[in-house]
């Protein structure tokens, strides 16, 4: 019996074998080829659908959100004006004390335009890419805290690997006791702070913030809070469980930390801001009277 006859008789099994071989070949292909192939196809086919969905999905709440944001911006601008006055004084004192120059984060606001369709994977797609000077490994923040890092950059979009991924641990420290550990995702919104010794002071309710070690996540951003602390079987380390309040499934806007700017060169206020403050305050006052 020739091979063609076997194939003809067992067509479905042959198709299955071919497809399984194809799938396995894709699985063992080098990561860079996988990413570039996937991005090419996605850019061509599926991005328009996501853009349309996000556009219509956001219209409903945008009016209320805008009103609320305007109010918030007005409050923040007031507060910032006050802070600007403190800044100069603070910088003068720091120079007198010869402290290291502090740095300021340059944030790039980005919209989440896609997320993977898989229940077990944790990547989002944002609308900023190399055209906006986004680079791989740049940290990504949300309003609530540190959410992940840029894993792949394309001209007009980037992939962000969230911290709720198995291979994306974050160096964190206990905000209260300054104990340092490595926060690893377990499942859902649960994390575990690893490499904590029994002599370290970690308690339930403590907030874990990014330590800045490792050079990816900037220091001081909240990530999770401790929910359970118990001694490990080995007797020398602690099992520290933590939970995050960040809802990774509903992230809509994130901020990529593009670079660090020396504090005195950061644009904290310019002429446009003063005009904006006046405009916003005018609208607020008009809204209040109504």
């Amino acid at each position, binding site marked *: 019996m020739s091979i063609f006859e076997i194939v003809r008789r067992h*067509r*479905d099994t042959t*198709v*299955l074998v071919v*497809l*399984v071989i*194809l*799938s*396995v*070949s*894709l*699985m*063992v*292909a080098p*990561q860079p080829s*996988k*990413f570039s*192939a*996937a*991005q090419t*196809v*996605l850019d061509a086919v*599926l991005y328009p*659908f*996501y853009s349309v*969905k996000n556009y219509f*999905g956001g219209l409903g709440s945008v009016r209320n959100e805008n009103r609320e944001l305007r109010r918030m911006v007005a409050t923040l601008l007031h507060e910032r004006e006050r802070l600007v006055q403190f800044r100069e004084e603070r910088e003068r004192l720091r120079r007198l004390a010869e402290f290291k120059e502090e740095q300021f984060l340059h944030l790039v606001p980005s919209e989440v335009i*896609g*997320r*993977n*369709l*898989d*229940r*077990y*994977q944790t*990547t989002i797609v944002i609308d900023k890419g190399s055209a906006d000077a986004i680079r791989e490994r740049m940290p990504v923040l949300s309003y609530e805290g540190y959410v992940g890092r840029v894993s792949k950059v394309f001209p007009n979009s980037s992939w962000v690997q969230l911290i709720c991924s198995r291979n994306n641990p974050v160096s964190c420290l206990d905000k209260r006791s300054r104990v340092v550990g490595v926060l690893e995702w377990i*499942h*859902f919104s649960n994390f575990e702070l690893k490499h904590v010794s029994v002599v370290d002071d970690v308690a339930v309710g403590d907030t874990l913030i990014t330590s800045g070690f490792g050079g990816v996540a900037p220091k001081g951003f909240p990530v999770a809070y401790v929910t359970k602390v118990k001694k490990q079987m080995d007797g020398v380390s602690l099992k520290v469980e933590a939970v995050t309040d960040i809802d990774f*499934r*509903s992230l809509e806007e994130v901020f990529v930390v593009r670079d660090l700017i020396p504090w005195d060169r950061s644009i904290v206020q310019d002429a446009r801001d003063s005009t904006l403050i006046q405009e916003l305050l005018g609208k607020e006052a008009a809204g209040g009277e109504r």
Partner: protein
Amino acid sequence: MKGLGVGVVLVVFFLLQAVFSDALTFGRIGPDFPLLIVAYFAIFRGSIAGSVFGFVVGLLQDLFNPSFLGLNALTKTLVGFALGRAGAQTERDHPIFLLALFGISALAHDVVYLLFYTQLRLGEFFVTLLTVALPSAVYTAVVGILVHVGVAFFLTEVVRNLGKTRS
């Protein structure tokens, strides 16, 4: 023309997944629309169409996470093939059989997927299987059967009555 129809169905189901998946998902438990369309296709079109369709749908899903490119394609190919075979040997129009086939296929899909995804870390495998995969399989099966019954009702009742005049 047939290919165009299949393409349209594919796009519709991916849109369903993109638009409704979040709304219908509780925690990590949610319906797997791409799997449903593969199951449906396999049951009614046979194992060859089922496995090819499973491969295409799985591959499209994998494009969203290329780190595991090929994994969804593999699992959905296997599910498409198995359901194609099973569909030919069962009472496939009966809702109870369909419900069982949807549920079993969703669970089998997740079992194979998780075996690769967790790289045989059995603790994690079983925790995810019990807390995510099992409830999701039940959920997917229920959503699948509701869609099936809904579409069947629409086709038989609503379309049949279109154009009828009141006496």
